[in-house]
């Protein structure tokens, strides 16, 4: 029974010391500690959110980079293809031009050759004609020295004419 009876003096001192303790602790201990812990908590939350944001940003940047790379690659491919096409075209053109030129030159050369040949043939013909005239003259002069010779030829030709 004795230990179950509250003692007013002890109740008084317990209340007094507890309230004093509570007030002092609240003011000088719990306030800074809890504030710091809360600050840290918030800081951690913020940091986590920042990290999350940074991660998202990273992902986004990575995506952008990837897209840019892809674009660049495509562009490069396009450029290469274009360049190749251009080269082909140029080569083709050059080939064509060269061919044209060549054929033109050839044509010209051929014409020249033809002309030269014709000229040469004409010249040769003239020369041959002149030569043959010369020869003929010389032969004639040789043949027609005597009158009877002249006579026999005349008659021969005339005979031929008759037969015609």
């Amino acid at each position: 029974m004795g230990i179950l009876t509250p003692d007013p003096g002890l109740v008084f001192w317990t209340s007094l010391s507890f309230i004093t303790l509570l007030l002092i602790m609240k003011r000088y201990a719990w306030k800074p500690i809890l504030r710091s812990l809360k600050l840290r908590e918030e800081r951690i939350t913020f940091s986590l959110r920042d990290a999350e944001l940074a991660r998202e940003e990273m992902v986004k940047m990575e995506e952008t980079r990837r897209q840019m790379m892809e674009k660049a690659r495509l562009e490069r491919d396009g450029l290469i293809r274009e360049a190749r096409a251009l080269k082909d075209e140029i080569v083709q053109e050059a080939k064509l031009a060269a061919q044209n030129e060549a054929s033109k030159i050839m044509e010209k050369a051929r014409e020249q050759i033809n002309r030269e040949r014709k000229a040469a043939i004409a010249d040769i013909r003239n020369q041959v004609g002149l030569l043959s005239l010369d020869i003929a003259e010389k032969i004639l002069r040789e043949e027609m020295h005597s009158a009877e010779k002249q006579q026999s030829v005349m008659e021969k030709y005339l005979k031929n004419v008759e037969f015609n």
Partner: protein
Amino acid sequence: MMIFDRCIKLAGGKRFFKHFLAICCLLMPVALSAGENLEEESEFDAAAMIMHHIGDSYEYSILSFTNGRGEKIKVSLPLPVIIWHKGQLKVFMSSSFKGGDELVPIGDDYLRLYHEKVYLTDASGAINHDESQSVLNAQPINLSITKNVASMMLSCLIMLAIFIPAARRYSRKGALVAPKGAQSIVEPIVLFVRDDIIRAQIDKDKADRFTPFLLTIFLFILINNILGLIPFFPGGANASGNISFTLTLAAFTFILTNISGSKHYWKDVFVVPGTPLPIKLLLVPIEFIGLFTKPFALMLRLFANITAGHIIVLSLISIIFVMKTIFVAPVSVFLSIMIYCLEFLVSFLQAYIFTLLSSLFIGLAVNEHH
């Protein structure tokens, strides 16, 4: 539960066994001499000794022994006695009572220390009893610094000495540096109480209002429990195993719960919505009584657990003196060490349960209904 694991770890292994044997050897001569002395004296009264130890006292006993000439020597720290009687305040040291032999005059009356209680008597110092041996003399208004009060104040000082430097470090360095020194003890405790006890029971937006109160109550009970477990001078007062102490703390919880109760809470108590009238008539008184039984159970739980622990330890030690043989000493010392380990766990557990149930009751009173 971590603490219990540690205890087991501590208790396991050969080292513990060696220590235990060493303690037994150390205690043997003490127990032996005590036994010898007791044989000369009257019968050893275990119940009276236990009641004396778990009760309050006006002096802080440090040591008591019988010297070579057979004189009983008591070394104790006298504590101030503060008496308010008939508009007169009297403050004196408890050594003035000379252990109950001397009367201390106050006004026209005299004060006498009788069985660790101060009574008003006449000049002859007579104590009157009725048939059932209870004292009839009046007790003055007594605000003495008793052993329990002194121990409680010591616990307050310990708490301030641990927490204020830690808090100063927090406000000086901020929360973003690694904890150091006292901070390393403070921080896990504070986080545990805040997150696992308070925030688990009270809605988060309202929890912060009650955190200082519940943290203080947790540590106050914990430190007093541990101080009560220390068997020698600065401890051993059993403040948290005293009904006045637990009554006061439970009363604080009761007051705080009811002044912060929401409309829903009072409606649940006095209207009990959603039940037919006859059941309401039945439920309202039950709910109303429930308001008081909750803190009453808090009060009794702490009191009974701590007091029971002390009684068991003291009983186990008393076995040596009751049996008057040294050979039970190893057994009773071993058992009391085991109980000490258990009591160490219980001192944490009871502080935890008191705080948990307090926050549960506060949570019931303030939480929004989901």
